[in-house]
């Protein structure tokens, strides 16, 4: 499963993308955030305020309750500031 990070989420984690294999118990976006947060200080820092983190699965916005099964690419990023 490919994970991509943007803006200060990317900076805090220290990488733009990676491929991970979470265990089967990790079913939702919220589960994935929890699991990633346990992978090291930089992840814990990036996700310390999980409420503000936005998520997209395969280029579409999703809630943190969304299931991750079948996802090709999951993105984590701060609230958007384009336009």
């Amino acid at each position, binding site marked *: 499963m490919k994970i*991509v990070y943007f803006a*200060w989420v990317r900076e805090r984690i220290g990488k733009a993308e990676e491929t991970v294999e979470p265990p089967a118990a990790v079913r939702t976006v919220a589960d994935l955030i929890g699991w990633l947060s346990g992978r090291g200080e930089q992840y814990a820092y990036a996700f310390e305020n999980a409420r503000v983190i936005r998520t997209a699965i395969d280029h579409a916005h999703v809630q943190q309750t969304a299931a991750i099964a079948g996802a090709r690419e999951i*993105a984590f990023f701060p609230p*958007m*500031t*384009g*336009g």
Partner: protein
Amino acid sequence: MTVPVTIRLQEADFDTAREIAAISRGRTDIGAVVTFSGICRGGEGGDAIAALTLEHYPGMAEAEIGRHAEEALQRWPLTGLTVIHRYGRIVPGENIVLVVTASSHREAAFEAAEFLMDYLKTKAPFWKREEGAGGSAWVDAAAHDDAAAARWTKR
């Protein structure tokens, strides 16, 4: 009838006049063209800004803008629609974003342009980083932009 829709993400600047001409040239069914140009300001409040750097999510940005362009076409009788969003480093006075809407009636052109801008601000995956005198920092999302976008779902 197929409505011409142009969506471009690019590092280079764009020419607003050329985009207006492209949407209206040779046509006599357009009564109203509205353009919105978002421009990099030299300061927010009292702090001077040297430049903005816009990061984006390639692939998703095009998809997200495309979905909102489609929604605009469903909601308003448009005869043309152009959205151009830049990324990379942009200095004060330079263009950031352009929305052009064409319609036979002015209300449709105005409303569709506002709708698209509100969604670009809150849903399109772009992030601004400001360079100022004291270093650089990511711009916080503004609550009033979320409120502006929410008005389009309250109908």
